[in-house]
């Protein structure tokens, strides 16, 4: 058979053919209808060639300076506009302080130790409240997403709770718990838990049905399905819920701290803000607002941003996005 003189005709696969012994002189033309490779090694080589042709080359990640410089530039522009507005002198200086006034006030507050104390108090509460909210909301959210009757029963209520501003709970909480930390935490829970549950449920709703089918075919039990398939598949939506949950708990915390002052409640950023209002000291008020904003931005940049980016990159969802 190797003595076949025509170059366009390939050799008959020797190893795989059952009838290697037959001395039939017929020429075997390979087409898509028949075996196209000549054994395991040939197949391995062809496949490896095709694999490398079809796979993307890995691109290296470098530090993208525009990511750092553009936000800073935007910040500088905003501060300049603020300064320009103040220097027009349209409003009294004690009502609309300029950037430098606020910076000075911040320095004074730092000297008194109020900045450190209030940021630490609020951040600690925010984080503890958020972590407990996650621990409560995750199993509840999974249960609601997986068990249809439960979801039909409680779904609208949870959505409603998310729409209800958690500040509305402050008066009730003060009556129930007095001016204690319990009031603050209660309000944080009522803000964060529904939004984390909703995020998880909508994440579960967006799972391609194919994933569940695969889970079933692979023989996953109900619990395995929830933990090995549903939860990881819903992770992008869940993370969105967590981000929103953090935003809600931070907002609720500030609201609670502004309204409920005194008692055994410590001195948080909201308390600082309220103190500024009572003293009619606009620079303190602005400083407190900026601190609250800064903490929010830092948590997004240092915690949620990197986690989300890593998650999306690993799943190949980052290509073409403006992140």
């Amino acid at each position: 058979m190797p003595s076949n003189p025509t170059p366009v005709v390939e050799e008959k696969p020797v190893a795989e053919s059952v009838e290697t012994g037959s001395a039939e002189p017929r020429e075997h033309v390979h087409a898509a209808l028949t075996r196209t490779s000549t054994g395991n090694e040939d197949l391995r080589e062809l496949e490896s060639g095709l694999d490398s042709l079809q796979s993307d080359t890995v691109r290296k990640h470098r530090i993208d300076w525009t990511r750092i410089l553009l936000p800073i530039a935007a910040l500088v522009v905003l501060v300049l506009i603020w300064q320009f507005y103040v220097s027009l002198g349209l409003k009294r200086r004690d009502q609309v302080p300029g950037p430098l006034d606020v910076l000075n006030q911040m320095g004074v507050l730092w000297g008194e130790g109020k900045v450190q104390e209030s940021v630490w108090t609020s951040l600690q509460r925010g984080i503890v409240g958020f972590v407990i909210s996650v621990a409560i909301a995750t199993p509840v959210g999974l249960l609601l997403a997986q068990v249809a009757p439960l979801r039909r029963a409680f779904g609208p209520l949870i959505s409603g709770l998310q729409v209800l501003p958690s500040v509305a709970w402050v008066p009730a909480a003060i009556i129930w718990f007095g001016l204690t930390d319990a009031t603050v935490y209660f309000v944080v829970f009522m803000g964060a838990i529904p939004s984390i549950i909703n995020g998880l449920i909508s994440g579960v709703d967006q799972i391609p049905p194919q994933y569940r089918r695969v889970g079933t075919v692979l023989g996953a039990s109900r619990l395995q399905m929830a933990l090995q398939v549903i939860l990881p598949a819903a992770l992008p939506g869940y993370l969105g819920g967590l981000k929103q949950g953090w935003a809600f708990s931070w907002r609720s915390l500030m609201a609670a701290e502004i309204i409920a002052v005194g008692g055994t409640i410590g001195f948080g950023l909201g308390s600082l803000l309220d103190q500024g209002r009572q003293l009619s000291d606009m620079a303190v008020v602005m400083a407190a607002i900026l601190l609250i904003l800064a903490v929010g931005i830092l948590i997004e940049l240092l915690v949620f941003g990197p986690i989300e980016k890593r998650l999306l990159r690993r799943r190949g969802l980052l290509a073409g996005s403006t992140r």
Partner: protein
Amino acid sequence: MPVVLEHLGKRFGDGAPVLDDVNANIGRGEFVALLGASGCGKSTLLNIIAGLEAPTSGALEVPSDGAAFMFQDAALFPWLTARENIELALKLRGVGKAERRAKAQELLELVHLGAAGDKRPHELSGGMRQRVSLARSLAQDRQLLLMDEPFAALDAITRDLLHDELERIWKETGRTIVFVTHNVREAVRLGQRVLLLSSRPGRVVQEWAVTEEHRTDAGLAGQLTGVITARLREEIRRHAK
């Protein structure tokens, strides 16, 4: 006989029957291609064999441990690497951790992806994903492997290669394979037997044996393809108004 279908019928609600009086015997280690035009209930039939759906009439005999399933899209979990996808199948089967790792590597080698185990699905080409998917369905370690048009979405070059690949793996592992396709050439290329399903309702109307001769002789294979295509068109023409 791992799979016996007797007078199998399926209808959804009050609609017209999707499957009607389907009869087939599939022997152990056999490679059967199930061929039919769209709407012949091929996928429904596979789902019934896999135990994902129940037939409305008739009886069927399938292996008690169920069947492995391979889908048209690879359906790999994007949060896991190729290796972890295979390991998950082993884990859900109750294989211990140390053994999982070795077994997954073995399966990756089997589909010629030994070096790509740590890649994520989005980093793999369509053909590679489908091979990982094949390895995952082999990880289920069921005698019966059901394949629902697994190569339909691939480019022609890749598909031709995967045909060789699947044939090789079938021979190495001795699985019983039921391969659903609407591609006559694919059915002739892969199946030892080709079963033609009619459309609306689906029923096995004819079957052809494909011999080892057809594997190496394009002329012979082409002839059979022509015969089956003609019969398939006849079935389709019946639905013309």
